[in-house]
C-alpha cells in the first residue's frame, strides 16, 4: 500500500478532498507508515506511535482543505513535522532529555524518512515560481546567491517563505 507513487497519492488526496470516501483506505494505508517512520526517526520508538496517530488525525481532518492539483507529500510532511515539533516541546517541558531519546540517524528507517522529506521539499520548491525557488535554493546553498542587493534577496526569501507556507497549508507553528 505504501508503495503508491506520488502521483497516485496526489490523485487519492484530490479525490478525498472532493468527498470520494472510497479513496480513504488506500490513502490511510499509504500515509500511516510514512508518518510512523518519520516520527520514529525523529522521536524514537516510545513517542512515535502516538505522535504519528495525532498527525494523521490532523491530516485527515484537514483533507477537505487540500487543493487538488497540488502535491500531497509536502503538505502531509508539514503536518507531521509540526506534530513532531510539538511533541519535542512537550517532552522538553516535562523532563530532562535521556540517552535513549537519542535517535540513530544512520539507521535505514531514518535515512528513508530523510529521503522522503528531501523529495517533499523538492516538490514544494517545484511548485514555486522561479524567483522564489531560486531564493530558497540559494539559502540552502544549492545554487549561488543571485547578484542582487541583500535587501532584495531578503524580500525574495520572505515572499518565497510566504508562498511555501500557503502551499503547505499554514501548518507551520499552528
Amino acid at each position, binding site marked *: 500500500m505504501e508503495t503508491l507513487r506520488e502521483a497516485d497519492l496526489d490523485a487519492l488526496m484530490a479525490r*478525498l478532498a472532493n*468527498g*470520494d470516501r472510497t479513496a480513504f483506505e488506500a490513502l*490511510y494505508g499509504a500515509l500511516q507508515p510514512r508518518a510512523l517512520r518519520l516520527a520514529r526517526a525523529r522521536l524514537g520508538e516510545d513517542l512515535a506511535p502516538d505522535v504519528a*496517530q495525532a498527525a494523521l488525525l*490532523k491530516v*485527515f*481532518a484537514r483533507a*477537505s*482543505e487540500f487543493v487538488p492539483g497540488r502535491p500531497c507529500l509536502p503538505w502531509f510532511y508539514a503536518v507531521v513535522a509540526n506534530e513532531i515539533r510539538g511533541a519535542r516541546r512537550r517532552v522538553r517541558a516535562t523532563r530532562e532529555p535521556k540517552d535513549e531519546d537519542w535517535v540513530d540517524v544512520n539507521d535505514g528507517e531514518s535515512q528513508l524518512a530523510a529521503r522522503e522529506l528531501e523529495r517533499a521539499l523538492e516538490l514544494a520548491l517545484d511548485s514555486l515560481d522561479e524567483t522564489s525557488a531560486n531564493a530558497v535554493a540559494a539559502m540552502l546553498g544549492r545554487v549561488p546567491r543571485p547578484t542582487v542587493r541583500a535587501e532584495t534577496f531578503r524580500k525574495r526569501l520572505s515572499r518565497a517563505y510566504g508562498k511555501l507556507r500557503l502551499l503547505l497549508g499554514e501548518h507551520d507553528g499552528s
Partner: protein
Amino acid sequence: MEADTSIHYERARRAYEWGRLETSARRAAMLLVPIGGLGWLLWGAGALVWLPLTLAAWTIAYWRGEAVLRGAWLGLLAGGATFVLPMSLLRPCCVGRVVEAGASCCTMPGMCLGAGAAVGLVLATLVPVSRTSWPKVAGGMALGAASLAMLRCSSLFAGEALGLVGGLLAGLCAASAAKALLRRDATA
C-alpha cells in the same frame, strides 16, 4: 495490535468526517452572503428567516461532495427559476377585480405545486445524469433548488410555499429517475 490499528483507522475516518463537516459549514456560510443578499433585495428582510435552512442544505451538499455537490449547483438554477415566477402565475385568483375591490387574495397551493414541478422537470431533463450517480445528483439538485426556492417562499403562504418546493423537488427527482431508467434500458 490489529485492534489498535482498527481503532486508529476508525479515529482517522471520524476525524475526516468531522473536519469535512466543519469545512463544509464554513463554505456554506460564505455562500449565504450572495444568496441572502439576493433574497433580501427581491423579497425583503422576511426572506432571511429561511437562511438557516439554506445554510443546512449547502452544508450537507458540501459535506457529501462529488455528485451531490454537482447536483446542488445545478439545483441552484432551478431555485433561481422560482425567483422569476410571477405572482399572477402562483396565485392567479389574486388579480383584477378581486384586488381592486380590496378583498384578500385566495391561496392556491395547487398552482405552486404545478409551477414548481414544471420548473423541476424542465431543469432535470437538461442535466446529464449517469446511471450510477442519479440518486446523488437528484438529491443534490433537490438540496440546491430548495436552498434558494425557500427564500421565494417568504412571499407566499405556508401551503403555497410547501407546494412550490415540493413540486420542484418532485419534478427534479422524477425526471432524473426517468432519465436514468431510460439510459439503463438503452444500454442494456
